[in-house]
């Protein structure tokens, strides 16, 4: 027994070391580009985990993520124009995203599977138009109500922003663990298995889906707001863009949909591909598209699916999950 305990602790050490290194990245003089990629990694990780929660665990294939992160980002931007401190803008943004999720949940959940996806596809497009036309406060970058600079971020150190992302990213992993083990997680598993049976067993399908939707919106929104805090400006066509969804979908599916480690691994791959193929944007996406297709056909559980076939990996996973 004692031996087993030591062994499991030992395997955790490299993982803990990695996390420590990542945490201290800004301080140990790592090059700016590394910081940027690590930053992106944590942002995407948080969002990918949320997408996995929705599409993988709740059967809600949401193409609506850009709406959440965009609304949160705009809340932040408008907040800074109105004089709110940036951190209030962050929290406000997350709240707005969650409220929006609540708002659209009523009509959108009445739609089953496919219609749900269509509905969530249209929402970001509509918001893009809205923010293109609407100018809630002064200032513009292009077009009528289009872009906003995010004010007052001069005083916020990039290190701080990096750590915010770090907390979000790592936090999302723990959040997923908590949710999946909780009553919510069990209910979701039941719904995924057979919705009607779950309902007849007293599982409130709508409520559970709603909770998931709101949680996902909150975290996605928060991550988006932090992203825009870093970027310093926000404008509609890049924000409410299906490219966000593509990235998250890629990360989750490549890693392994419906697995806990999937988004983590997938996000590494996606960020790595961006890094590697930054110069060849077109080819990068082409390859990602082909990977997506090949993966679904050959190893639907993504990389994690392939890894799980090795006993060593299974052992590792067991140690980490205790």
């Amino acid at each position, binding site marked *: 027994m004692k031996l087993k305990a030591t062994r499991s602790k030992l395997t955790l050490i490299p993982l803990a070391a990695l996390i420590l290194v990542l945490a201290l990245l800004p301080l140990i003089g790592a090059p700016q580009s590394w910081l940027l990629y690590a930053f992106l990694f944590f942002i995407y990780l948080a969002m990918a985990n949320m997408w996995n929660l929705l*599409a*993988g665990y709740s*059967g809600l*294939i949401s193409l609506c993520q850009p709406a959440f992160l965009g609304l949160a980002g705009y809340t932040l931007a408008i907040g800074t124009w109105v004089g709110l401190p940036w951190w209030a803008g962050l929290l406000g943004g997350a709240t707005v995203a969650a409220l929006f999720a609540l708002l659209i949940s009523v*009509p*959108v959940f*009445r*739609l089953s*599977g*496919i*219609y749900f*996806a*269509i*509905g969530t*596809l*249209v*929402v970001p*497009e*509509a918001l893009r*138009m*809205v923010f*293109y*036309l609407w100018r809630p406060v002064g200032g513009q970058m292009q077009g*009528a109500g289009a872009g906003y600079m995010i004010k007052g971020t001069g005083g916020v150190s990039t290190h701080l922003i990096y750590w915010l992302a770090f907390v979000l990213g790592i936090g999302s992993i723990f959040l997923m663990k908590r949710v999946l083990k909780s009553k919510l997680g069990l209910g979701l598993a039941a719904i995924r298995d057979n919705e009607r049976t779950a309902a007849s067993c007293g599982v409130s399908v709508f409520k559970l889906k709603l909770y998931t939707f709101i949680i996902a919106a909150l975290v996605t929104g928060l991550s988006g707001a932090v992203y825009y805090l870093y970027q310093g400006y926000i404008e509609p066509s890049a924000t409410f863009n*299906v490219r966000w969804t*593509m990235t998250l*979908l890629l990360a989750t*599916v490549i890693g392994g*949909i419906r697995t806990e480690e999937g988004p983590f691994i997938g996000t590494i791959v996606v960020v790595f591909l961006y890094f590697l193929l930054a110069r060849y944007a*077109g*080819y990068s*996406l*082409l390859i*990602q*598209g*082909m*990977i*997506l*297709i090949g993966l*679904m*056909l050959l190893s*639907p559980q993504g990389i994690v699916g392939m890894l799980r076939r090795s006993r060593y990996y299974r052992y590792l996973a067991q140690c980490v999950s205790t």
Partner: protein
Amino acid sequence: MMGSGDIITPLVMGILLGGLYALIALGLSMVFGVMRLINLAHGDLVILGSYGGYALMTLLGLDPIVGLVISIPLMFLLGFAIQKYLMGRAFGISSEAPLIIAFGISLVLQNANQILWTPLSRALNTSYSNLSFSIGLRQFPLTYLLDFTAGIIVMLALRAFLIHTYLGKAITAASQDKKAAQLMGINTKRVYGYAFAIAMISAAIAGVFLGMTFPFTPTSGVSFLTIAFGTVIIGGLGSMLGTFIGGIILGIVQTLGGYFFGPASQMLIVYVIVLVVLAIRPQGLFGR
């Protein structure tokens, strides 16, 4: 610009434009009606048709409509292959697999086109592209009329196919009850292949007429996908006639929206209407 006099022009333009929208959406409607597949790659397949027409035009000097003679069989085969080797297998894998594979196809198409043709916008300009015709004192672009005509013809052709041919009836049956269709001896895998292939033909045609009406880029597919979905939602999935009417409605909503609220808000009004219809009656006007 608000409500300045002539409402007839935008109305007519809307109807004609609606014909193009319907043409784009018909393939999507059929595929969805039969296989319950959200083909996220549909817009990109239509644009593929546009680029196909462009290739034939620049390389062989063929008029795009004439070029269809070549591109239709090619698109048919491509469609059959996509269904047989990709989509067909996806259904057995998981509930999200078809969507994800369609997404992957979309990525591949967009970026392949981008590499081949650069992100520059292209257009299918023919000798008659800039002509206009007149109804009374008003002038309208000829291409719009061609689009509308093509839309009607394709809609009627698809409808006749589904109702009167044996394969068409099999496709219809498979869309109403897959298990029963299988029990009738219908090889659903092959029938789905044909359905997708036929949808591709309509996408090829739509691509050509689209290219003659508007300039297009490798990423144009996304906006037309949304329009196609909107059309299908309003008109009802699986009904060819319904999709056509849905297209007309969408076209009118867009042009009248632009007329009353300014051109910038056109698409927003369209999206709002689509969301409203989704909320109230997701199966559309003619859907089951």
